[in-house]
Protein backbone atom coordinates (compact mmCIF):
# COMPACT_ATOMS: atom_id res chain seq x y z
CA UNK A 1 0.00 0.00 0.00
CA UNK A 2 1.27 3.42 -0.87
CA UNK A 3 0.46 6.71 0.72
CA UNK A 4 -3.12 7.88 0.53
CA UNK A 5 -3.80 11.32 -0.83
CA UNK A 6 -7.02 13.30 -0.93
CA UNK A 7 -7.98 13.94 -4.55
CA UNK A 8 -10.93 14.99 -6.64
CA UNK A 9 -12.33 12.24 -8.84
CA UNK A 10 -11.49 14.22 -11.97
CA UNK A 11 -7.88 14.59 -10.88
CA UNK A 12 -7.64 10.92 -9.92
CA UNK A 13 -8.66 9.93 -13.46
CA UNK A 14 -5.99 12.19 -14.94
CA UNK A 15 -3.21 11.02 -12.63
CA UNK A 16 -4.16 7.37 -13.09
CA UNK A 17 -4.14 7.75 -16.88
CA UNK A 18 -0.66 9.25 -16.78
CA UNK A 19 0.60 6.48 -14.49
CA UNK A 20 -0.94 3.92 -16.83
CA UNK A 21 1.16 5.31 -19.67
CA UNK A 22 -1.19 7.74 -21.37
CA UNK A 23 0.83 10.56 -22.94
CA UNK A 24 -1.80 11.94 -25.31
CA UNK A 25 -4.82 13.89 -24.16
CA UNK A 26 -7.20 15.91 -26.33
CA UNK A 27 -10.16 17.74 -24.89
CA UNK A 28 -12.38 20.74 -24.71
CA UNK A 29 -13.49 22.26 -21.38
CA UNK A 30 -16.92 21.60 -19.92
CA UNK A 31 -18.32 21.51 -16.38
CA UNK A 32 -18.18 19.26 -14.35
CA UNK A 33 -15.01 17.59 -15.70
CA UNK A 34 -12.75 20.59 -16.34
CA UNK A 35 -10.35 19.73 -13.49
CA UNK A 36 -9.35 16.67 -15.51
CA UNK A 37 -8.27 18.74 -18.50
CA UNK A 38 -6.61 21.29 -16.20
CA UNK A 39 -4.59 18.54 -14.53
CA UNK A 40 -3.47 17.21 -17.91
CA UNK A 41 -2.54 20.72 -19.06
CA UNK A 42 -0.29 21.09 -16.04
CA UNK A 43 1.32 17.65 -16.05
CA UNK A 44 1.64 16.52 -19.67
CA UNK A 45 4.22 19.11 -20.79
CA UNK A 46 6.45 18.19 -17.82
CA UNK A 47 6.59 14.50 -18.71
CA UNK A 48 6.97 14.77 -22.48
CA UNK A 49 3.30 14.16 -23.14
CA UNK A 50 0.80 16.01 -25.29
CA UNK A 51 -2.05 18.09 -23.91
CA UNK A 52 -4.09 19.78 -26.57
CA UNK A 53 -7.19 21.85 -26.10
CA UNK A 54 -8.91 21.32 -29.42
CA UNK A 55 -11.17 23.82 -31.16
CA UNK A 56 -14.17 21.57 -30.46
CA UNK A 57 -15.18 18.17 -29.14
CA UNK A 58 -15.45 16.90 -32.71
CA UNK A 59 -11.83 17.86 -33.36
CA UNK A 60 -10.68 16.33 -30.07
CA UNK A 61 -12.20 12.91 -30.75
CA UNK A 62 -10.72 12.84 -34.24
CA UNK A 63 -7.28 13.62 -32.77
CA UNK A 64 -7.89 10.66 -30.46
CA UNK A 65 -8.69 8.56 -33.55
CA UNK A 66 -5.40 9.61 -35.12
CA UNK A 67 -3.23 8.78 -32.13
CA UNK A 68 -5.12 5.52 -31.52
CA UNK A 69 -4.07 4.45 -35.01
CA UNK A 70 -0.42 4.72 -33.99
CA UNK A 71 -0.95 2.34 -31.05
CA UNK A 72 -0.30 4.90 -28.30
CA UNK A 73 -2.47 5.22 -25.23
CA UNK A 74 -4.80 8.14 -25.80
CA UNK A 75 -7.82 9.65 -24.12
CA UNK A 76 -10.35 12.43 -24.19
CA UNK A 77 -12.83 13.61 -21.58
CA UNK A 78 -16.01 15.61 -21.59
CA UNK A 79 -19.47 15.81 -20.09
CA UNK A 80 -22.80 14.86 -21.60
CA UNK A 81 -23.39 17.49 -24.35
CA UNK A 82 -19.73 17.26 -25.29
CA UNK A 83 -19.86 13.48 -25.47
CA UNK A 84 -22.83 13.72 -27.84
CA UNK A 85 -20.63 15.76 -30.16
CA UNK A 86 -17.98 13.05 -30.07
CA UNK A 87 -20.29 10.24 -31.18
CA UNK A 88 -19.35 10.31 -34.85
CA UNK A 89 -15.68 9.93 -33.99
CA UNK A 90 -16.39 7.18 -31.46
CA UNK A 91 -18.27 5.21 -34.12
CA UNK A 92 -15.32 5.58 -36.51
CA UNK A 93 -12.84 4.43 -33.82
CA UNK A 94 -15.06 1.41 -33.09
CA UNK A 95 -15.35 0.72 -36.84
CA UNK A 96 -11.58 0.87 -37.23
CA UNK A 97 -11.14 -1.53 -34.26
CA UNK A 98 -8.88 0.80 -32.30
CA UNK A 99 -8.32 1.17 -28.55
CA UNK A 100 -9.03 4.53 -26.91
CA UNK A 101 -10.52 5.85 -23.69
CA UNK A 102 -13.40 8.32 -23.52
CA UNK A 103 -14.40 9.80 -20.16
CA UNK A 104 -17.95 11.04 -19.61
CA UNK A 105 -18.51 12.91 -16.33
CA UNK A 106 -22.26 13.12 -16.81
CA UNK A 107 -24.52 16.12 -16.19
CA UNK A 108 -28.25 16.53 -16.60
CA UNK A 109 -29.79 16.53 -20.08
CA UNK A 110 -31.14 16.46 -22.73
CA UNK A 111 -29.79 19.40 -24.72
CA UNK A 112 -27.47 21.71 -22.84
CA UNK A 113 -29.37 20.55 -19.76
CA UNK A 114 -27.69 21.59 -16.52
CA UNK A 115 -24.36 21.09 -14.81
CA UNK A 116 -25.46 18.95 -11.86
CA UNK A 117 -24.82 15.17 -11.67
CA UNK A 118 -26.78 12.72 -13.79
CA UNK A 119 -26.75 9.17 -15.13
CA UNK A 120 -28.98 9.86 -18.10
CA UNK A 121 -26.33 8.98 -20.71
CA UNK A 122 -26.65 5.28 -19.87
CA UNK A 123 -28.44 4.49 -23.13
CA UNK A 124 -25.93 6.49 -25.14
CA UNK A 125 -22.95 4.77 -23.51
CA UNK A 126 -24.22 1.20 -23.53
CA UNK A 127 -26.45 0.97 -26.59
CA UNK A 128 -24.45 2.76 -29.25
CA UNK A 129 -24.66 6.53 -29.26
CA UNK A 130 -23.05 6.71 -32.67
CA UNK A 131 -24.24 4.85 -35.77
CA UNK A 132 -23.63 1.27 -36.76
CA UNK A 133 -23.13 -2.12 -35.17
CA UNK A 134 -20.75 -1.52 -32.30
CA UNK A 135 -20.29 -1.59 -28.55
CA UNK A 136 -18.13 0.27 -26.06
CA UNK A 137 -16.68 -1.32 -22.96
CA UNK A 138 -18.36 0.83 -20.28
CA UNK A 139 -17.07 1.08 -16.70
CA UNK A 140 -18.91 2.89 -13.91
CA UNK A 141 -16.83 4.00 -10.92
CA UNK A 142 -18.45 4.47 -7.51
CA UNK A 143 -15.55 6.01 -5.56
CA UNK A 144 -12.54 8.20 -6.23
CA UNK A 145 -10.36 5.08 -5.85
CA UNK A 146 -12.37 3.42 -8.62
CA UNK A 147 -12.12 6.54 -10.79
CA UNK A 148 -8.37 5.83 -10.76
CA UNK A 149 -8.39 2.02 -10.86
CA UNK A 150 -11.04 1.71 -13.57
CA UNK A 151 -9.24 4.27 -15.75
CA UNK A 152 -6.20 2.00 -15.83
CA UNK A 153 -8.42 -1.05 -16.31
CA UNK A 154 -10.27 0.62 -19.18
CA UNK A 155 -7.01 1.20 -21.08
CA UNK A 156 -6.01 -2.44 -20.57
CA UNK A 157 -9.35 -3.85 -21.70
CA UNK A 158 -9.55 -1.51 -24.66
CA UNK A 159 -6.12 -2.62 -25.90
CA UNK A 160 -6.76 -6.28 -25.18
CA UNK A 161 -9.91 -6.39 -27.30
CA UNK A 162 -9.33 -3.45 -29.69
CA UNK A 163 -12.62 -1.92 -28.56
CA UNK A 164 -12.89 1.72 -27.41
CA UNK A 165 -13.73 2.04 -23.71
CA UNK A 166 -15.78 4.60 -21.83
CA UNK A 167 -15.59 5.54 -18.17
CA UNK A 168 -19.11 6.64 -17.27
CA UNK A 169 -18.89 8.84 -14.17
CA UNK A 170 -21.07 11.73 -13.01
CA UNK A 171 -20.64 15.21 -11.58
CA UNK A 172 -20.54 14.01 -7.99
CA UNK A 173 -17.81 11.46 -8.69
CA UNK A 174 -15.83 14.07 -10.58
CA UNK A 175 -16.12 16.80 -7.97
CA UNK A 176 -15.83 14.87 -4.70
CA UNK A 177 -12.59 14.24 -2.86
CA UNK A 178 -11.75 10.97 -1.13
CA UNK A 179 -8.55 9.27 -0.05
CA UNK A 180 -6.96 7.47 -2.98
CA UNK A 181 -3.92 5.22 -3.29
CA UNK A 182 -2.39 5.35 -6.75
CA UNK A 183 0.66 3.20 -6.03
CA UNK A 184 -0.90 0.14 -7.66
CA UNK A 185 -1.20 1.77 -11.09
CA UNK A 186 1.67 1.42 -13.51
CA UNK A 187 2.41 1.21 -17.22
CA UNK A 188 1.87 -2.25 -18.69
CA UNK A 189 4.68 -4.07 -20.47
CA UNK A 190 5.00 -3.08 -24.08
CA UNK A 191 2.79 -5.28 -26.21
CA UNK A 192 3.19 -5.92 -29.93
CA UNK A 193 0.78 -3.85 -31.99
CA UNK A 194 1.27 -5.17 -35.51
CA UNK A 195 -1.77 -3.21 -36.71
CA UNK A 196 -0.42 0.20 -35.68
CA UNK A 197 0.56 2.84 -38.23
CA UNK A 198 4.13 3.60 -37.22
CA UNK A 199 6.03 3.83 -40.50
CA UNK A 200 6.99 0.75 -42.55
CA UNK A 201 10.67 1.64 -43.01
CA UNK A 202 10.14 -0.21 -46.30
CA UNK A 203 10.21 -3.49 -44.39
CA UNK A 204 6.55 -4.45 -44.34
CA UNK A 205 3.27 -3.78 -46.06
CA UNK A 206 1.40 -0.62 -45.17
CA UNK A 207 -1.08 -0.81 -42.32
CA UNK A 208 -4.27 0.97 -43.20
CA UNK A 209 -6.62 2.36 -40.54
CA UNK A 210 -10.08 2.69 -41.99
CA UNK A 211 -13.75 2.18 -41.28
CA UNK A 212 -14.97 2.32 -44.90
CA UNK A 213 -15.96 -0.98 -46.57
CA UNK A 214 -17.95 -0.46 -49.73
CA UNK A 215 -18.32 -4.16 -50.46
CA UNK A 216 -21.17 -5.26 -48.19
CA UNK A 217 -19.82 -8.82 -47.87
CA UNK A 218 -16.61 -7.39 -46.42
CA UNK A 219 -18.37 -5.02 -44.04
CA UNK A 220 -20.62 -7.81 -42.85
CA UNK A 221 -17.58 -10.01 -42.22
CA UNK A 222 -15.91 -7.19 -40.25
CA UNK A 223 -19.01 -6.83 -38.06
CA UNK A 224 -19.22 -10.60 -37.54
CA UNK A 225 -15.58 -10.64 -36.40
CA UNK A 226 -16.14 -7.74 -34.05
CA UNK A 227 -19.16 -9.39 -32.47
CA UNK A 228 -17.11 -12.56 -31.88
CA UNK A 229 -14.81 -10.38 -29.77
CA UNK A 230 -17.80 -8.84 -27.99
CA UNK A 231 -18.95 -12.36 -27.08
CA UNK A 232 -15.58 -13.09 -25.45
CA UNK A 233 -15.79 -9.80 -23.54
CA UNK A 234 -19.29 -10.65 -22.30
CA UNK A 235 -18.08 -14.05 -21.11
CA UNK A 236 -14.93 -12.84 -19.37
CA UNK A 237 -15.06 -9.22 -18.33
CA UNK A 238 -18.27 -8.64 -16.34
CA UNK A 239 -17.60 -6.86 -13.06
CA UNK A 240 -20.02 -6.20 -10.25
CA UNK A 241 -20.20 -5.84 -6.47
CA UNK A 242 -22.63 -7.84 -4.39
CA UNK A 243 -23.58 -6.26 -1.04
CA UNK A 244 -25.65 -8.08 1.62
CA UNK A 245 -27.23 -10.30 -1.05
CA UNK A 246 -26.78 -13.69 0.66
CA UNK A 247 -30.20 -13.86 2.32
CA UNK A 248 -31.84 -10.95 0.50
CA UNK A 249 -35.56 -10.91 -0.40
CA UNK A 250 -35.24 -7.61 -2.23
CA UNK A 251 -32.45 -6.63 -4.63
CA UNK A 252 -31.52 -3.00 -5.22
CA UNK A 253 -29.60 -2.43 -8.47
CA UNK A 254 -27.58 0.77 -8.80
CA UNK A 255 -24.24 2.01 -10.13
CA UNK A 256 -21.98 5.00 -9.48
CA UNK A 257 -23.30 7.65 -7.09
CA UNK A 258 -26.73 5.94 -7.01
CA UNK A 259 -25.09 2.82 -5.56
CA UNK A 260 -23.56 4.85 -2.74
CA UNK A 261 -26.89 6.41 -1.85
CA UNK A 262 -28.49 2.96 -2.07
CA UNK A 263 -25.94 1.41 0.30
CA UNK A 264 -27.00 3.84 3.03
CA UNK A 265 -30.62 2.82 2.41
CA UNK A 266 -29.82 -0.91 2.43
CA UNK A 267 -27.98 -0.60 5.76
CA UNK A 268 -30.88 1.42 7.22
CA UNK A 269 -33.47 -1.10 5.96
CA UNK A 270 -31.50 -4.00 7.45
CA UNK A 271 -31.74 -2.24 10.81
CA UNK A 272 -35.53 -2.32 10.38
CA UNK A 273 -35.32 -6.06 9.74
CA UNK A 274 -35.90 -5.92 5.99
CA UNK A 275 -33.77 -8.45 4.10
CA UNK A 276 -32.43 -6.34 1.26
CA UNK A 277 -29.19 -6.36 -0.70
CA UNK A 278 -27.51 -4.47 -3.51
CA UNK A 279 -26.00 -5.54 -6.81
CA UNK A 280 -23.78 -2.82 -8.21
CA UNK A 281 -22.79 -3.22 -11.86
CA UNK A 282 -19.20 -2.02 -12.33
CA UNK A 283 -19.20 -2.85 -16.04
CA UNK A 284 -22.36 -1.44 -17.63
CA UNK A 285 -21.38 -3.14 -20.86
CA UNK A 286 -20.93 -6.01 -20.60
CA UNK A 287 -23.89 -5.87 -18.20
CA UNK A 288 -23.63 -8.37 -15.30
CA UNK A 289 -26.66 -10.44 -16.30
CA UNK A 290 -25.70 -13.66 -14.49
CA UNK A 291 -25.85 -12.40 -10.87
CA UNK A 292 -29.18 -10.68 -11.60
CA UNK A 293 -30.61 -13.82 -13.23
CA UNK A 294 -29.56 -15.82 -10.17
CA UNK A 295 -31.10 -13.26 -7.83
CA UNK A 296 -34.36 -13.41 -9.81
CA UNK A 297 -34.89 -16.97 -8.55
CA UNK A 298 -34.53 -15.89 -4.92
CA UNK A 299 -35.83 -12.35 -4.39
CA UNK A 300 -39.38 -11.05 -4.67
CA UNK A 301 -38.44 -7.98 -6.64
CA UNK A 302 -35.83 -5.52 -7.87
CA UNK A 303 -35.47 -1.77 -7.38
CA UNK A 304 -33.46 0.08 -10.01
CA UNK A 305 -32.07 3.29 -8.50
CA UNK A 306 -30.99 5.78 -11.13
CA UNK A 307 -30.29 9.46 -11.77
CA UNK A 308 -32.40 9.33 -14.93
CA UNK A 309 -35.98 8.62 -16.01
CA UNK A 310 -35.09 4.92 -15.94
CA UNK A 311 -32.56 3.58 -18.43
CA UNK A 312 -30.63 0.75 -16.75
CA UNK A 313 -33.98 -0.63 -15.60
CA UNK A 314 -34.46 -2.03 -19.13
CA UNK A 315 -31.29 -4.10 -18.80
CA UNK A 316 -32.36 -5.29 -15.34
CA UNK A 317 -35.67 -6.50 -16.84
CA UNK A 318 -33.87 -8.23 -19.71
CA UNK A 319 -31.33 -9.87 -17.40
CA UNK A 320 -34.06 -11.16 -15.08
CA UNK A 321 -36.37 -12.06 -17.98
CA UNK A 322 -39.16 -10.23 -16.14
CA UNK A 323 -39.48 -13.12 -13.68
CA UNK A 324 -39.97 -10.66 -10.83
CA UNK A 325 -41.23 -7.08 -10.69
CA UNK A 326 -38.66 -4.36 -11.32
CA UNK A 327 -39.56 -0.90 -10.01
CA UNK A 328 -37.82 2.40 -10.51
CA UNK A 329 -36.58 4.75 -7.78
CA UNK A 330 -35.18 7.84 -9.41
CA UNK A 331 -34.49 11.56 -9.65
CA UNK A 332 -33.39 13.31 -12.81
CA UNK A 333 -32.22 16.59 -14.29
CA UNK A 334 -29.32 16.95 -11.85
CA UNK A 335 -31.23 15.87 -8.72
CA UNK A 336 -29.99 12.96 -6.63
CA UNK A 337 -32.24 10.48 -4.80
CA UNK A 338 -31.79 10.63 -1.01
CA UNK A 339 -31.17 7.50 1.05
CA UNK A 340 -34.61 8.15 2.60
CA UNK A 341 -36.27 7.99 -0.83
CA UNK A 342 -34.58 4.67 -1.58
CA UNK A 343 -35.45 3.37 1.90
CA UNK A 344 -39.11 4.27 1.31
CA UNK A 345 -39.03 2.35 -1.96
CA UNK A 346 -37.51 -0.68 -0.16
CA UNK A 347 -40.18 -0.48 2.58
CA UNK A 348 -42.96 -0.36 -0.02
CA UNK A 349 -41.66 -3.48 -1.74
CA UNK A 350 -41.23 -5.24 1.63
CA UNK A 351 -44.89 -4.51 2.51
CA UNK A 352 -46.29 -5.90 -0.74
CA UNK A 353 -47.43 -9.53 -0.80
CA UNK A 354 -47.12 -10.10 2.93
Amino acid sequence: MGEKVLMKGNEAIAEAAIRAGCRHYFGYPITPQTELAAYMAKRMPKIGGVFLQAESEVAAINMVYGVAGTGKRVMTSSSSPGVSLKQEGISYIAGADLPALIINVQRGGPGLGGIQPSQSDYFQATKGGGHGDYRLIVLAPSSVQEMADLTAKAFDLSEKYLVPAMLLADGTMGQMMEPVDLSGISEPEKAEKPWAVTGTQCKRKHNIINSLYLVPEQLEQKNFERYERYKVIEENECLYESFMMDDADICVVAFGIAARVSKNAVVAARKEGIKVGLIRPITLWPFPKAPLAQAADKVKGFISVELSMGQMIEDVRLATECKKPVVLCNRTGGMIPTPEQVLESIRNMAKEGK
Partner: protein
Amino acid sequence: MTTQILIAGFGGQGVLFAGKFLAYKGMLEDKQVSWLPSYGPEMRGGTANCSIIISDDPVGSPIVSTPDALIAMNLPSFDKYENAVVSGGKVFIDSTLIGRKAQRTDIDAYYIPATKMAADAGIPTLANMIILGKMIKETGAVSFENMVDVMKKIVSAKRAELIDINIKALEAGYNYEG
Protein backbone atom coordinates in the same frame (compact mmCIF):
# COMPACT_ATOMS: atom_id res chain seq x y z
CA MET B 1 -18.86 7.09 14.84
CA THR B 2 -19.92 9.08 11.79
CA THR B 3 -19.99 12.87 11.72
CA GLN B 4 -21.72 14.64 8.85
CA ILE B 5 -20.65 18.24 8.49
CA LEU B 6 -21.89 21.06 6.28
CA ILE B 7 -19.86 24.26 5.90
CA ALA B 8 -21.63 27.10 4.12
CA GLY B 9 -20.98 30.75 3.38
CA PHE B 10 -20.10 33.23 0.60
CA GLY B 11 -17.65 32.30 -2.12
CA GLY B 12 -14.26 33.62 -1.00
CA GLN B 13 -14.69 32.96 2.73
CA GLY B 14 -12.62 29.80 2.55
CA VAL B 15 -15.53 27.42 3.03
CA LEU B 16 -14.07 24.80 0.68
CA PHE B 17 -10.59 25.14 2.15
CA ALA B 18 -11.84 24.66 5.72
CA GLY B 19 -13.66 21.54 4.55
CA LYS B 20 -10.63 20.21 2.75
CA PHE B 21 -8.52 20.74 5.87
CA LEU B 22 -11.03 18.83 7.96
CA ALA B 23 -11.22 15.93 5.48
CA TYR B 24 -7.44 15.71 5.29
CA LYS B 25 -7.19 15.67 9.07
CA GLY B 26 -9.68 12.83 9.23
CA MET B 27 -7.79 10.89 6.59
CA LEU B 28 -4.51 11.26 8.48
CA GLU B 29 -6.29 9.80 11.52
CA ASP B 30 -7.08 6.74 9.37
CA LYS B 31 -10.76 7.56 9.24
CA GLN B 32 -12.99 7.21 6.17
CA VAL B 33 -13.66 10.63 4.71
CA SER B 34 -15.40 12.35 1.82
CA TRP B 35 -15.54 15.98 0.68
CA LEU B 36 -18.07 17.23 -1.82
CA PRO B 37 -18.37 20.87 -2.93
CA SER B 38 -21.38 22.63 -4.37
CA TYR B 39 -20.28 23.48 -7.89
CA GLY B 40 -23.26 25.28 -9.33
CA PRO B 41 -23.34 28.77 -10.84
CA GLU B 42 -24.18 30.03 -7.34
CA MET B 43 -20.46 29.83 -6.54
CA ARG B 44 -19.69 32.94 -8.53
CA GLY B 45 -20.34 35.72 -6.04
CA GLY B 46 -23.07 33.79 -4.27
CA THR B 47 -23.14 31.08 -1.64
CA ALA B 48 -20.74 28.15 -1.51
CA ASN B 49 -20.91 25.05 0.61
CA CYS B 50 -19.28 21.69 1.06
CA SER B 51 -20.28 18.37 2.60
CA ILE B 52 -17.72 16.51 4.71
CA ILE B 53 -18.21 13.08 6.21
CA ILE B 54 -15.77 11.65 8.74
CA SER B 55 -16.49 8.09 9.78
CA ASP B 56 -15.10 4.88 11.23
CA ASP B 57 -17.04 2.98 8.53
CA PRO B 58 -16.97 3.27 4.73
CA VAL B 59 -18.78 6.39 3.55
CA GLY B 60 -21.94 5.73 1.51
CA SER B 61 -23.55 8.79 0.01
CA PRO B 62 -21.15 11.78 0.17
CA ILE B 63 -24.07 14.21 0.19
CA VAL B 64 -24.83 15.74 3.60
CA SER B 65 -28.51 16.67 3.68
CA THR B 66 -28.99 16.36 7.47
CA PRO B 67 -25.77 17.59 9.12
CA ASP B 68 -24.67 16.70 12.65
CA ALA B 69 -22.69 19.93 12.57
CA LEU B 70 -23.33 23.06 10.52
CA ILE B 71 -20.92 25.96 10.12
CA ALA B 72 -22.82 28.99 8.87
CA MET B 73 -20.67 31.89 7.71
CA ASN B 74 -23.43 34.11 6.34
CA LEU B 75 -27.12 34.70 6.89
CA PRO B 76 -28.42 33.14 3.64
CA SER B 77 -26.63 29.89 4.53
CA PHE B 78 -27.95 29.91 8.09
CA ASP B 79 -31.49 30.58 6.84
CA LYS B 80 -31.18 27.79 4.28
CA TYR B 81 -29.69 25.07 6.45
CA GLU B 82 -30.80 25.66 10.05
CA ASN B 83 -33.79 23.35 9.65
CA ALA B 84 -31.69 20.64 8.01
CA VAL B 85 -29.56 20.06 11.12
CA VAL B 86 -30.37 16.82 12.97
CA SER B 87 -32.10 17.10 16.32
CA GLY B 88 -29.38 17.37 18.95
CA GLY B 89 -26.92 18.64 16.31
CA LYS B 90 -24.59 21.59 16.63
CA VAL B 91 -24.48 24.86 14.69
CA PHE B 92 -21.53 27.23 14.59
CA ILE B 93 -22.51 30.76 13.67
CA ASP B 94 -20.25 33.62 12.63
CA SER B 95 -21.98 36.19 14.84
CA THR B 96 -20.13 39.10 13.22
CA LEU B 97 -22.05 38.51 10.01
CA ILE B 98 -25.20 36.80 11.27
CA GLY B 99 -27.38 39.04 13.42
CA ARG B 100 -30.02 36.56 14.47
CA LYS B 101 -30.04 33.66 16.91
CA ALA B 102 -30.99 30.07 16.17
CA GLN B 103 -34.77 29.55 16.08
CA ARG B 104 -34.62 25.89 16.95
CA THR B 105 -34.33 24.82 20.56
CA ASP B 106 -33.38 21.19 19.91
CA ILE B 107 -29.89 22.06 18.63
CA ASP B 108 -26.81 23.51 20.35
CA ALA B 109 -25.89 26.88 18.87
CA TYR B 110 -22.42 28.40 19.27
CA TYR B 111 -21.93 32.06 18.41
CA ILE B 112 -18.37 32.96 17.43
CA PRO B 113 -17.54 36.47 16.19
CA ALA B 114 -15.04 34.87 13.82
CA THR B 115 -14.85 37.65 11.24
CA LYS B 116 -14.18 40.26 13.94
CA MET B 117 -11.68 38.03 15.73
CA ALA B 118 -9.84 37.48 12.47
CA ALA B 119 -9.75 41.20 11.68
CA ASP B 120 -8.54 42.06 15.21
CA ALA B 121 -5.77 39.47 14.97
CA GLY B 122 -4.58 40.84 11.63
CA ILE B 123 -5.63 37.70 9.74
CA PRO B 124 -8.84 38.96 8.10
CA THR B 125 -9.16 36.06 5.64
CA LEU B 126 -9.10 33.35 8.27
CA ALA B 127 -12.49 33.56 9.96
CA ASN B 128 -13.10 30.14 8.38
CA MET B 129 -10.31 28.51 10.38
CA ILE B 130 -11.33 30.25 13.62
CA ILE B 131 -14.84 28.86 13.41
CA LEU B 132 -13.49 25.47 12.33
CA GLY B 133 -11.31 25.37 15.46
CA LYS B 134 -14.39 25.83 17.63
CA MET B 135 -16.28 23.16 15.70
CA ILE B 136 -13.47 20.63 16.15
CA LYS B 137 -13.44 21.32 19.90
CA GLU B 138 -17.20 20.90 20.37
CA THR B 139 -17.78 17.92 18.05
CA GLY B 140 -14.57 15.92 18.47
CA ALA B 141 -15.00 14.88 14.82
CA VAL B 142 -11.20 14.89 14.61
CA SER B 143 -8.54 15.41 17.27
CA PHE B 144 -6.72 18.72 17.70
CA GLU B 145 -3.25 17.14 17.51
CA ASN B 146 -0.66 17.45 14.72
CA MET B 147 -2.46 20.26 12.94
CA VAL B 148 0.79 21.47 11.39
CA ASP B 149 1.20 18.13 9.58
CA VAL B 150 -2.17 18.58 7.91
CA MET B 151 -1.39 22.18 6.95
CA LYS B 152 1.83 21.08 5.31
CA LYS B 153 -0.15 18.69 3.12
CA ILE B 154 -2.53 21.27 1.76
CA VAL B 155 -0.57 24.53 1.78
CA SER B 156 2.08 24.61 -0.96
CA ALA B 157 5.70 24.98 0.20
CA LYS B 158 5.90 28.27 -1.66
CA ARG B 159 3.38 29.77 0.75
CA ALA B 160 4.75 28.26 3.98
CA GLU B 161 4.12 31.55 5.82
CA LEU B 162 0.43 30.75 5.69
CA ILE B 163 0.85 27.66 7.86
CA ASP B 164 1.57 29.55 11.07
CA ILE B 165 -1.32 31.98 10.72
CA ASN B 166 -3.77 29.20 9.87
CA ILE B 167 -2.71 27.33 13.01
CA LYS B 168 -3.02 30.56 15.00
CA ALA B 169 -6.58 30.97 13.71
CA LEU B 170 -7.54 27.36 14.53
CA GLU B 171 -6.21 27.81 18.07
CA ALA B 172 -8.04 31.09 18.55
CA GLY B 173 -11.32 29.35 17.70
CA TYR B 174 -10.50 26.25 19.70
CA ASN B 175 -9.83 28.32 22.81
CA TYR B 176 -12.76 30.71 22.32
CA GLU B 177 -15.27 30.65 25.18
CA GLY B 178 -18.31 32.78 24.75
